[in-house]
Structures are given as structure tokens and as C-alpha cells.
């Protein structure tokens, strides 16, 4: 059975990965032998300089999902490269580093830093960052998306994946802009904008007032977005949004995604990614599908 997927020049042993910001693998908690079975690992988004993150409360439970406003708390690119990359390399699982920046200049500096790191599987651009010239996110503006992806692509030694936001009118416009600019793949979806209010105090629940919705609650929305994008672009898509089971993941693969990532459900069921992988294999055996490529985009409409 062939489960391998290629994005740009990087080959991933299987299509199951984890969504940025939702997976850690500290040895005191995880069985490394299991972590090594993943098709790729995507750590939390890294920015050029350390960010302290948003004031608490940062998370809130919602029906079949959660709101988060973590604020990309991270130690910055240099610390990540020095302290974390060597540990990731030992795992020998393809590493997709997620990065974000507030300007094109900072994105370029980030790329140059990561160009110096050998053996990266890919770089994922988290484009849910403010688009400085307008009051939108980069991922909400096809022109800004095109500009950033192009600038990065020109310099990057590794494949570039653009991570897109669902908070747009027409995802296909953004997806096409990223593809035109040379992206090797797309990741979707990031969280849906949302909020919650404590009626006793009439204050927003989240310290940041608003946040992003994720988890099984968003899955049908994510599936529709992935399906629509897959109709328009020819580059591989890493799909995420509420995936909890192999059945959920299969929906995304059939809709046209090449890889699937477990996000929020890692917090609830840490075994979810491996259960998803086992379930995909079982389905392929039952359906007599020898190559995952035959499954991807096999939707019958």
C-alpha cells in the first residue's frame, strides 16, 4: 500500500500529521515510538522575536469545540532553532515549521534563518497575521497573500505551504493567489473568528476579547472550504478542522486533500492521529485502494 505524499520536493511517509499549536511531544508525556509514526510534525508557529502571548483566559470550551486566543506565545526563531530543532531532527519525522510575521521584511528574515537549517520538510506560512496596510489579515487579501508567498518563495530553499484562513468570502481567490505565487502546498483551515461573553459580568470570556473556533464543531465548514479549494488548485492541500476520527479524515481526502492534520482533538484524545492513520489504512484495504493518490479527490458528484 502506498501512503506517501509529496509536497514540493519533500516526501512524507503517510498523510497524517498534526495542526500547528496543538501538538507537543515532550518525552515525559509521549511515547516517541508512536510519535515517529506520524507523516509529519508541525510545531507551534514561530515568530522572528519571542512573543509573550495574550492575557488569560486564553481558552474557552464551546459545543463540540473550543475558542482560543493564545497569541502565538513562542520563544522566537533563534531559540527555536537552537533548542528545539535538534530534538525534532532526532525523531526523523519530516518537520514542517510554521512561521508568521508582521511584515514582508520579517517573513524574509525568518526564511533566511530557516534556510540555514538543514533537512526541514517544509515551511508553513501562517498567514492569519495582520496585513499592515489594511485592516485585514494577509490571508484575507489575495494580493497580500500573493506578495508574501512570492517574496518567500523566491528565497526559500525548502517547500512553502501557505496556511489559509476560513474567515474569507471566497477561499478560491486566496488559494489561487497562493498557487500563482508559487506555493508548493496549502494548509487549511485556521480557526474561525469567534467570541463568548460571560453574562454575569457582561465581559468577554477571553482575555483577548475575540478568539478562534476549532474542533469538531467547525468540521463541515472546513470540509466545504477544502473541497472548494481543491476544485481550483493543483497543489497538495493539508486539511484540518475538527478531525477526530479516520472517517472525518477520509472525508477530507475524498474531497481532495492530500494530507490531514489532527488539531484540537489532540488535547482530548492524544491517540487520535494514530487512530486516524490506522483507520485510513483499514479503509484502503477494504476498498482495495493500493495508492493513496487514488483516494485523494475521489469524490463522486
Amino acid at each position, binding site marked *: 500500500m502506498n501512503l506517501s505524499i509529496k509536497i514540493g520536493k519533500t516526501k512524507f511517509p503517510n498523510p497524517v500529521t498534526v495542526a500547528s*499549536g*496543538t*501538538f*507537543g511531544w*515532550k518525552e515525559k*508525556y*509521549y*511515547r516517541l515510538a*508512536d*510519535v515517529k509514526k506520524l507523516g509529519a510534525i508541525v510545531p*507551534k508557529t514561530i515568530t522572528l522575536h519571542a512573543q*509573550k*502571548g495574550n*492575557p*488569560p*483566559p*486564553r*481558552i*474557552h*470550551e*464551546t*459545543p*463540540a*469545540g*473550543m475558542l*482560543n486566543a*493564545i497569541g502565538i*506565545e513562542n520563544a522566537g526563531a533563534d531559540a527555536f532553532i537552537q533548542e528545539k530543532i535538534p530534538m525534532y531532527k532526532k525523531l526523523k519525522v519530516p518537520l514542517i515549521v510554521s512561521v508568521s510575521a508582521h511584515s514582508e521584511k520579517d517573513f524574509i528574515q525568518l526564511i533566511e534563518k530557516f534556510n540555514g537549517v538543514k533537512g526541514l520538510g517544509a515551511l508553513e506560512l501562517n498567514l492569519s497575521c495582520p496585513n499592515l496596510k489594511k485592516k485585514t489579515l494577509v490571508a484575507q487579501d489575495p494580493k497580500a497573500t500573493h506578495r508574501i508567498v512570492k517574496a518567500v518563495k523566491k528565497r526559500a530553499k525548502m517547500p512553502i505551504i501557505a496556511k489559509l484562513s476560513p474567515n474569507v468570502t471566497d477561499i478560491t481567490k486566496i488559494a489561487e493567489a497562493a498557487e500563482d505565487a508559487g506555493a508548493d502546498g496549502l494548509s487549511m483551515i485556521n480557526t474561525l473568528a469567534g467570541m463568548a461573553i460571560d453574562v454575569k459580568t457582561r465581559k468577554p470570556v477571553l482575555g483577548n476579547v475575540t478568539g478562534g473556533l476549532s*474542533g*469538531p464543531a467547525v468540521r463541515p465548514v472546513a470540509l466545504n472550504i477544502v473541497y472548494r479549494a481543491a476544485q481550483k488548485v493543483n497543489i497538495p492541500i493539508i486539511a484540518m478542522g475538527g478531525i*477526530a476520527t479516520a472517517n472525518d479524515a477520509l472525508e477530507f481526502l475524498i474531497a481532495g486533500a492530500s494530507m490531514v492534520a489532527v488539531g*484540537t482533538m*489532540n*488535547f*482530548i*484524545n*492524544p*491517540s487520535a*492521529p*494514530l487512530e486516524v492513520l490506522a483507520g485510513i489504512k483499514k479503509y484502503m484495504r477494504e476498498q482495495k485502494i493500493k495508492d493513496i493518490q487514488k483516494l485523494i479527490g475521489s469524490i463522486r458528484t
Partner: protein
Amino acid sequence: MQKVQKIYKVINNKKLCQQFFHLCLKPVSAIPEIKPGQFIHIKVSQGLEPVFRRPFSVARAGKNVEVIYEVVGKGTEILSQKKPGEILDVLGPLGNSFCKPPKGVKQVVMIGGGVGVAPLLALSDVLKGRGYEMVLLYGGRIKGHTFNMRTFCKNGCKVYVATEDGSVGIKGRVDKLYTKIKANAKETFIYTCGPRPMMASVAAFARKHGVQGQVSCEEVMACGVGTCLGCAIETRSGYKTVCDDGPVFDINEIF
């Protein structure tokens, strides 16, 4: 994928008093040794309602793992329905633990508010018989928050209770009991867990008398293993995670 994910069997789940339940669990396979202050992260329902696991301090650890909890919402309501023999998906033990009292300490003061008393019981289990003068100051809102403190007494603790309505012990908040603290900067050490305003009052007392101590903190949690950064708490050295850096912090780190 996580080695801390285990199946536990419910041995017992009974009312401890009007407001609290006592849950006794048996891990189906071996788990690491549990230290006082650590917690377990329980999936209370098999479905997605509620989605998050619920964290509970370990109140006693031996052959079985015991939890004392209060029903405050849907998760704890579901937990209160569990019957002996049912199985639960549990992550744990998680988090750091209370430190040993520093050298020279003679009086160990435990200050618990409501169900926050739970990890202090686990602490008294390991500190008993070591020559400390142990004192538990317990504050509950009403009679329904008080329970038989026999286990603390058996561990050699002197127990003092205050209730806000005066139905049990002295009337008022737990700060009325601070007179029991010797407050000798070198010889007294405080451990506290309870509602934030109560812990803030303990911290103010400790600072005033130069007494050291530790607090066990709470924040809403998703992963429980330091990944999501959702349970951040502001400390003097920046944001830390309650689940992985905590739940136990130096009293001066937080207040």
C-alpha cells in the same frame, strides 16, 4: 501516543458531604508514582459534550487514586453519576508537586478553601510522622462544605475550621484562623489551595511576616500537558502553564 493516558476503573463514587463527592479510582495498568500536588485529567464523557477533559487534584494516592470534587457544572455533574465498575479515560499524573518543607521548618501550615483542600490531604499523607507540627486551616462557605477531617487528624494535623455562616467552627473566612500560624519566618512554611481571593489573602499574610510558601493554582485546561498554552497564568517571570510548570508555584511568584 501519550504514555500518561490510562484507563481507570471506578471503585467508589459517593457523597462525602452535602457539596463534595469522593471518587475512588483504580488504574487498570501501572502508573507512575503520584506526588502530592499532582492532578489527573479525566474525560468525563465518551462523546463531545463536554469536549474538554476535567482536571482534579489527587487527594490520596496509594493502591487507588482518590479525588474529592464539587459539582459545579456539567462535567462534574456527569462525573457524579459514575457507578462502581465503570471505566474512565484519564491522563496522569500530571503537573509538578509540592516541595518538601525547607530545612529548619518546624510548623507546616496548610490552608484550604473549599474543595481546594484535596491536594493538601495528599500532602499530609507524605509529611506525617516526620516531626513537623502540622496545622490545617480550612474555610468553607456553609456547613455543606465541611466534612469529617478524620484523615487529616490521623495524619497528625491540628484541624481548625471556619465557615462564612458560622454553622461549623468559627464564623468568618479562613483568615480568622491565621492566629494559629506561628509566622516565624524560618520555622513556618505555608501550603495553600483554594479560591484566588483566599490565596491572595494568604500571600499577603505570608509576605507581611516574611513566611515562605507554595500555592496550587487553577486555570481552565485543554491539553493538560503543556502543549496548548491555554492554561497560562501570569507569574513574576512571565506567563507559565498551570498544567506543566504548575499547578504548584512559589507563593511570591503568583501574588
